[in-house]
């Protein structure tokens, strides 16, 4: 069967989208924990295991934090106590929700228009953040091109590991994520659109937070959540 151009474009787009899929390490850990709980609770249906799993998760998090398995160095201010968990022992409690966050953004110093750091301060209960913020761009009120999601780029992100960390956020702590334009492949490229706002959310169902900050839209990349306010995290395995 010969494919049409449209079919080829669909296949190409799906492959591009697939590159943004999460890696399975966290899921493997959670499934292991849940199925282990199933073994100790014969006859119980998976849907009734929430209390068991919650207890396992809480104990595991305490062990993780107390055991110092973090193994990471954050370039963020020392006062920030959000914790990056590289080994993904188990999900670390409730997922953070956007409505509990105070969200701000600013240009990377020396890179106005090419790099933006989005900072989230937790005004709610302790929670966990995983992987990447969802980012859309606006150009004069119109939707801009979609970014790709990568671990790191020239301006920041996560280095020294092959997957985003899980970040545990006690109340009042901050995490950040770097967004950067591909300045290496588009040096001084004036044909790139000039974005003036970012729309940020944690999940697609969120009402996004709109942030007024300039950024050049040249194959932009979004990097993972990291503790602190720098958008940078160097893992030390």
């Amino acid at each position: 069967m010969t494919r049409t151009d449209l079919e080829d474009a669909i296949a190409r787009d799906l492959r591009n989208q697939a590159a943004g899929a999460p890696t399975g390490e966290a899921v493997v850990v959670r499934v292991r924990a849940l199925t282990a709980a199933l073994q100790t609770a014969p006859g119980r249906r998976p849907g009734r295991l929430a209390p068991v799993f919650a207890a396992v998760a809480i104990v595991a998090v305490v062990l993780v934090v107390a055991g110092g398995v973090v193994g990471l160095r954050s370039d963020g201010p020392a006062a920030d106590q959000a914790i990056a968990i590289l080994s993904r022992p188990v999900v670390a409690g409730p997922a953070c929700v956007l409505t509990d966050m105070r969200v701000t953004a600013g240009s990377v110093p020396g890179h106005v228009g090419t790099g933006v750091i989005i900072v989230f301060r937790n005004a709610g209960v302790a929670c966990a953040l995983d992987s990447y913020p969802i980012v859309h761009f606006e150009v004069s009120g119109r939707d801009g091109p979609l970014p790709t999601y990568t671990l790191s780029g020239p301006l920041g992100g996560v280095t020294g590991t092959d997957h985003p960390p899980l970040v545990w956020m006690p109340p009042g702590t901050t995490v950040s994520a770097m967004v950067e334009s591909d300045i290496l492949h588009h040096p001084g490229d004036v044909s790139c659109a000039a974005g003036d706002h970012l729309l940020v959310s944690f999940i697609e169902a969120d009402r996004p937070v709109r942030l007024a900050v300039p950024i050049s839209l040249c194959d932009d990349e979004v990097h993972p959540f990291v503790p602190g306010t720098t958008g940078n995290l160097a893992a030390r395995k």
Partner: protein
Amino acid sequence: MGTPPDFVTFLESRTDSLLVTAFLLTRDRHRAEELVQDTLVALYPKWHRVARADSAVAYVRRSMVNRFLNQRRRHVPPVVDGEAVEWAVPGDFDDRVADRDRLRRALDRLPDRQRAALVLRYFHDLDDASAARALGCRAGTVRSLVSRALATLRTDVTLRAGDTRTATAGDTPRRIR
């Protein structure tokens, strides 16, 4: 009861691949993780059936696609306040980027079953019979789903390429699903 060794092997070797499929279906990283996790945990007590199947990954994928379609039927996502806005692509954008974005948005607007059929056909390269098994329908239904999706995309992408309507200051962005 110990954990079946083939379950552990499957979990460690196939989770990434399942996540890609789940992500293409849900378009959301968190929901993709939940979908894979829920599917595997639900299948765990009857893993002997999976192990007896001709293809364990096809069995699990079929279960996951069904779970996705059933969840979507039950769950209506929250709607963002304000008027819905069709976000037009500015005419001075690079054509390649604009075309890609138009196609992506058109794909996002497809009904779930049509999108699932496209994922199975064009990402996994499944033939009609295999895609039908994954979707729990007949091969003819798969052909129909794909055909309707392609027709929609052809119309959608072509029409929106000429769309010059712009959002106004009072518009509220709403992600069109």
